[in-house]
């Protein structure tokens, strides 16, 4: 119930949105409403709807794919560009973010800015080394996703606006494989664990690079760097994926809650990482 809200604005430029955001302590940004309305922030006094501020786009800029912050899950799912990017992991993740009604309004910016540990888009974005562009009264700056998520706790006090997601074009080639895996209690659920994995092999099946990101098993989405390093240069076979998965299980710090225990999440991190690696291998033309 937002009965204390005094004003509702729909700025058509980012500059106007930033100005409004800074004008009152109770100013809150809203796009899809799927987090704001659900959590019922009682301190909201001014609502700033940014869905008309020109932030809904998917484009190429140089060697990057850039996505406006108010691009919806549905738009990501349906976009040829996103489906063709990194084996479609981002599109796949977007397709698991709740029901069709939710995906029609929920935005990539909201998914990141609300920084839920289980945010499904953050996982493939981290695996893709994405950055975000943040606009503030002083101008814009680009921040690595991990750094942005790490600062999430203080976000509400900083009058900045996430306006764009930048994804550097990942390596292409016949021996690339990407995979997104999600575990929920039912088909439509907040992730108990999710994983986004990408790798590239050489002609002898050795791993040139690997990216492994896990979500819902730490305060923010994590990269399992030790597992990635362990795989690099190694021939991708079952003992490699088993070893890497075991390493992933060591990299996470899950909690117990009403959905699952920490122990189960840790165990499932291993299982999901293994399955993702297996799927990547198959897509890279190197089935295990």
């Amino acid at each position, binding site marked *: *119930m937002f009965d204390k809200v005094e004003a509702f604005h729909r700025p058509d430029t980012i500059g106007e949105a930033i100005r409004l955001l800074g004008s009152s302590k109770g100013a809150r940004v809203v796009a899809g409403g799927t987090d704001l309305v659900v959590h019922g922030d009682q301190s909201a006094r001014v609502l700033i709807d940014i869905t008309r501020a020109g932030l809904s786009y998917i484009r190429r800029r140089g060697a990057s794919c850039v996505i406006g912050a108010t691009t919806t899950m549905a738009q990501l799912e349906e976009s040829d560009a996103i489906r063709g990017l990194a084996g479609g992991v981002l599109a796949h993740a977007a397709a698991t973010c709740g029901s069709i009604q939710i995906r029609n309004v929920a935005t990539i910016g909201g998914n990141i800015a609300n920084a839920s540990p289980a945010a499904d888009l953050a996982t493939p974005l981290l695996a893709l080394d994405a950055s975000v562009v943040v606009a503030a009264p002083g101008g814009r700056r680009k921040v690595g996703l991990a750094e942005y998520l790490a600062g999430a706790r203080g976000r509400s006090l900083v009058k900045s606006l996430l306006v764009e997601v930048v994804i550097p074009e990942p390596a292409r080639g016949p021996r690339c494989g990407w995979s997104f895996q999600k575990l929920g209690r*039912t088909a439509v659920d907040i992730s108990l664990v999710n994983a986004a994995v990408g790798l590239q092999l050489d002609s002898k099946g050795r791993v040139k690079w690997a990216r492994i990101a896990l979500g819902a098993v730490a305060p923010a989405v994590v990269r399992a760097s030790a597992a990635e390093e362990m795989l690099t240069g190694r021939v991708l076979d079952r003992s490699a994926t088993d070893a890497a998965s075991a390493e992933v299980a060591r990299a996470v710090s899950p909690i117990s809650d*009403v959905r699952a225990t920490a122990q189960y999440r840790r165990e499932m991190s291993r299982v999901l990482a293994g399955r993702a690696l297996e799927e990547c291998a198959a897509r890279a033309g190197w089935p295990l």
Partner: protein
Amino acid sequence: MSGRNVVGKNVRKVDGLKLVTGGAAFTDDIQLPGMLYGKILGSPHAHARLKRIDTRKAKALLGVHAVLTYKDVPRVPHTTAGQSWPEPSPYDTYLLDSKVRYVGDRVAAVAAESRAIAERALRLIEVEYDVLPAVLDMEQAMAPGAAVIHDESDSKGIHDREHNVAGYIHRGIGDVEQGFRESDCIFEREFRTQRQQHCPIEPHITISWLDANDRLVIRTSTQVPYHTRRQVAMILQIPVSRVQVIKPRIGGGFGGKQEMLLEDIAGALAMAARRPVKIEYTREEEFYMARTRHPQILRMKMGVKRDGTILASHMIVLATTGAYGSHAGTVQGNTGSKVLPLYRAPNMLFHCHVVYTNTPVAGAFRGYGCPQGFFAQETLADEIARELGMDPLEFHSRNVIRLGDIDRLSAQLGEGKEGLPRVIRSCGLPQCMERGAEAIGWREKRAKTQDGGHLKRGVGMACTMQGSGIAGVDWASAFLKMNEDGAFFLQAGAADVGGGADTVLAQIAAETLGVTIDKIVITSGDTDSTPFDVGAYASSTTIISGGAVKKAAEKVRAQVLGLASKLLDTPPDKLECANNEVFTTCACRKSVSMSDLAMHALYKEKLQIMDGASHFNTDSPPPFCATFAEVEVDTETGQVRVVHLATAVDPGVAIHPKLAEGQVEGAVAQGLGYALTEELVLDGAGRPLNANFCDYKMFSAKDMPKLTTILVETDEPLGPFGAKSISEVPINGPAPAIANAIFDAVGVRIRKLPIRPEDVLKALRSEVAAQ
């Protein structure tokens, strides 16, 4: 059945048009001038006394029209259970009290001009709590030193107040100890079941107002208009005839609305404010301030001969009813009386303590004690069959109750008092087992060996039964009158809560009167304009309310034939009614249309063709059900995917086959959630942790397995056109069938619900470790 025109046909639901066009049909779909918004202040503590409560600031807030605490209302002990008077549940509840007994219990109530003002008013009520130690674990409720939850002296009907025992049952037939002595093998296991919530898509909602004649009108989402009227009148200390309860379309009940829940407080606020007051639960409140299923710990012991014959079964149950004893003795009574007699064991004993805990209140929920009991019994039966090297189908065939049998246990375990023995006059269970087994591919799938992958498949089964109405207690009445166009107005007290009762009753009336379904206009569930009916519960509507409708229709038919006899100059026994006309059965084919006959009656004879009837049964014929599940267990994640669920039910005759199938499919969906995902979880302070649809998981359309529904029709002498019931029994099978299928797949027995992936994984690990 041959020769039936309306019964047995899939007519369009009589309220269907309204529902597919979004017509204003539900409780909230009205706007009353001056209507206020009511809200209840729920206790933040699981157990506390109100040391001080000050409502002055709340009352002074602009837009607030009433604020009530225990000081402002009469103190009348009662039960909220929607049951016939005198209700067999303890009278341990008060409109508002100076003590709170669970998180969410009523502290105060306000009525204000908007939801926002009402919420603000709640925050302005100053309360000082004297927090008491809470009893959250049912296994600790009777322990020495446990806090006494109902220490008030004026509550009645509590079995043992000092030890928090709301209800106690100890009944049986034969001699179980002797039976065990004669047995070749004895099996004893413990089972645990959880708190499930009904999750009707429409939460509880009530609107109440004083009309121009100063009568209290209550428009409410209820399964029990008449019980609610009686109880509200008693609590507010006004005559029953000064209260009117109207039940509009209901967005699901499943037992959660077999309860007087918001009507008393809405009425009290309406009387205090002298304005209409609406109270509706938010989804969160619906989870923990309404009702839940009773969690149970069941110990089941069965003694069998080597050939599989069951000689003795002994069930010991510990259940908690939460903070108040609504349905405490009766739900658990059912766990014994409807479950044990599925088998023809000559010796049975049921022993049960129902305790209070400072937790959300349990009440009626589809199955009413049977899902818990059948989970225990059918899982144990499967284990026994396997130990004896028998196909579970064979074990069941050997032991299940048969046509012509007498169930003597139900004489011991009536609804809170002596019951009546039950005679099985119709039984399609053997065919249910055969056809269900065929649908799931039982023989082929059990014989198949598994390949080496991490996904393992298995099949499992369960047989279950229920009742159809409460023998000697449930009753109904109906009234019919004829109109100029040959249509009949049917006034039935019955409460259609969404399953299609209005349609089924209209079909019964139409068939009996020989008219088409469009010639029945039904009004139901209004205590002013429809005659008494206990309400929609215990799978009673088709058989009991339908029985009353049939009787009333037969009486009216006799009047129609009496007049037709005069008009056609033919004795009534040579007349038939069909297709909206009365015609002679002899060679001279004379006839008169129903509308001509009606015009003649009303305007020439000065006769209103009308009559009513009441009906009850002295027996409760069980519907029978065989449930078969095929599951796929992921041995790496522990996840259980139900591939196929086949349900074969004997409902007697299905008055409306598609609505009957719909009952099966909906019940099975709730049974799947009960088996695998649903549980209302509380923290160490008794607060709900998952009171929302995100964290409390129901099956969605994407989770549902392939469903096969098989109706095995039999002809029940006690039911209208041979009908029994179908609305509850299918919910009993999925949990044990799935548990048994998991065993078939991976060799582990889970005896605790819900069966979570973690539990399966843990069991698999210990199984591997053991080997």
